[in-house]
């Protein structure tokens, strides 16, 4: 497949991802503006990070005037899954993926882009990934811009309700696998339980650190109680 065709095909696969991102990033834009960030700052965060949970947690750290160490640890914990996805994708790259392309395309590894790329039967070429990343990034950045800019124009009853959007998406990500796998359900319940304890019993713990501690403990418990078989499907 030539580069132009691969790029267009990637773009075609990226547009639905971008449309899905649009409304979620709209919610992020409102959230970020609500916590005192400017439209430019919110849009820049989306352009540079391209990750929902990490950005939401990052904005919390900024709003709470957390330390930079906390910011780095929060991002590391929340986004470490991308390392696993990057590792998995690195095994199926076409020979055209030179070092330069690897450095560029790594920027666009998200849950959805990983999912679609990993599901392709043939080895990945750079043009295909670039097309998909472009489609997805446009939706993510545009949505953030609109949310941050128009958030102030919309009535408060609407924007406050949209604050739920990101969390609704998180529930939509964790519930279906939790329903199918007892191990995931167990991890999810432990994490939520610990998080409630942190919130109500340890109020001096900042939100960012609380998420890190709860998530690491819950995932470690899951790994100890339910170690996964080598070839278990992901």
């Amino acid at each position, binding site marked *: 497949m030539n580069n132009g065709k691969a790029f267009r095909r990637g773009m075609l696969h990226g547009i639905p991802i971008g449309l*899905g991102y649009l*409304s*979620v990033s709209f*919610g992020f834009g409102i959230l970020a503006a609500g916590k005192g*960030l400017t439209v430019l700052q919110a849009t*820049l965060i989306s352009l*540079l*990070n391209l990750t929902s949970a*990490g*950005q939401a947690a*990052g904005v919390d750290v*900024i709003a709470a*005037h957390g330390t*930079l160490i906390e910011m*780095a640890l929060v*991002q590391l914990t929340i986004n*470490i*899954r*991308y*390392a*696993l996805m990057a*590792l998995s*994708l690195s095994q199926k790259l076409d020979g055209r993926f030179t070092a330069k392309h690897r*450095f560029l395309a*790594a*920027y666009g*590894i998200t*849950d959805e882009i990983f999912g679609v790329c990993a599901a392709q039967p043939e080895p990945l070429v750079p043009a295909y990934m670039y097309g998909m990343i472009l489609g997805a990034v446009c939706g993510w950045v545009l949505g953030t811009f609109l949310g941050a800019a128009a958030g102030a124009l919309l009535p408060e*009853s609407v924007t*406050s*309700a*949209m604050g*739920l*959007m990101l*969390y*609704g*998406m998180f*529930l*939509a*990500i*964790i*519930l279906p696998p939790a*329903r199918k796998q007892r191990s995931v359900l167990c*991890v999810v319940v*432990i*994490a*939520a339980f610990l*998080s409630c304890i942190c919130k109500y019993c340890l109020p001096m713990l900042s*939100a960012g650190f*609380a*998420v890190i501690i*709860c*998530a*690491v403990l*819950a*995932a470690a418990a*899951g*790994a100890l109680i339910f*170690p*996964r078989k080598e070839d278990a499907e992901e």
Partner: protein
Amino acid sequence: MSIAIYIAVMAGVTYLIRVIPFAFFRKKIKSKFLRSFLYYIPYAVLSAMTLPAILYSTGSMPTAIAGTAAALVLAYFGCPLIVVALAASLAAFLTGLFL
């Protein structure tokens, strides 16, 4: 502290997480514990971030509970992310009209 520095740290860490394995690693992780841990961590993070924060996300507990309930039901039945996210907001908004 300048917000630009926060954004730079945030973006830098996130990029390094993606690029290091993508550009340099060629082997598979062998440790069963580590593989399992990495598999569970996203679910643990999302769960810890969502609860109990979702209940305070609208500024009013009743509307947040309505939105959460809608999200839980639709997510349980495997509706697409976008549908769950929009329905949760809509449920919270509609509940807000009656308060």
